[in-house]
């Protein structure tokens, strides 16, 4: 069973994927990216990812929590450090989740 809202979400993401992945192949071969758009291409994805990730990590429920009692943001910092040093996505996921679980167990115990 797929809810109507989810169908719309699937459509929206598929459309966004088509526009960005297939779109460039439909443009004329001589077209070049204008410099201002080029800057937006470099900046926007990082800003979008940061704006998505941050609330996910610092809110517990609807409350801003930047203390040790919220293991999520600490796991995020650990993951960033691991990726910056190792360039390995697997190590990042495993290391970040390990930090999360260890802190959670420590807080509970």
């Amino acid at each position, binding site marked *: 069973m797929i809810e109507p809202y989810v169908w719309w979400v699937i459509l929206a993401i598929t459309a966004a994927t088509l526009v960005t992945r297939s779109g460039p192949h439909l443009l004329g071969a001589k077209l070049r990216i204008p410099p201002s758009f080029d800057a937006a291409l470099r900046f926007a994805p990082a800003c979008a990812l940061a704006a998505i990730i941050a609330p996910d990590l610092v809110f517990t429920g609807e409350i801003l929590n930047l203390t040790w009692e919220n293991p999520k943001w600490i796991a995020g910092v650990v*993951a960033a450090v691991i990726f910056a040093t190792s360039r390995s996505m697997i190590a990042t996921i495993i290391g970040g989740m390990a930090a999360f679980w260890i802190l959670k167990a420590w807080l509970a115990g």
Partner: protein
Amino acid sequence: MSPRTAFRQGVRELMPAAPGVFAWGLVTGVAMVKSGLSVPEAIALSLIAYAGSAQLAALPLMATFAPIWLIFVTAVIVNLRFVVYGVMMRSHLAALSISKRIGLGFLVGDIMFARFSALLEREPHYPQPVAYYFGGACSNWMWWQVSSIIGIVGATGIPLSWGLELAGTLTLVALLVPLCRQWPVLAGATVAAVTSVIAHDLPLRLGLPLGILVGVITAFLVERQRGVA
């Protein structure tokens, strides 16, 4: 060289990255279900949209029933890097029919683009670039879908208290870090993060586009400042 040989080479050269693709797909599958999608919903999203990071980015928006236009805009922005890939690869697909260009363009991914660029760096006059590309794309697609579906189906047996949806966010962290090597991007991303946290209480999750806007402006200003200095 026959197209078949080039296709096989494309498949083969993606293999070293397969564990990474597999882990990412697995995590995305688990995160989709743990964020509230049903198993058929998650499988449909994975098979139809095949969108990796955009899927993950949409999850917190979906969980709060954000408006569809915001999900579309967010997915486009997260996917903007593919526009760069497309522009760079365009000449290699230009001779194909429109439907083939749409199809092959749709199948591009971060890892296979890296492989394809590396090949053309090594051998600028590689005789069968399209077949190589298609081989890498098919391999990437298969690893991704198989691991996503394993994650989706397996997730129902994993307790919510494990907090595995966090793994999806950590995957996005891994995508964000390498983008922040330049000061303007780092400054913009930091401001975007802080803005979206401060503006979190705005309706329709408008804190997200506001954060992106303020972040991009910050990055622009920082770059101009450094250009002048």
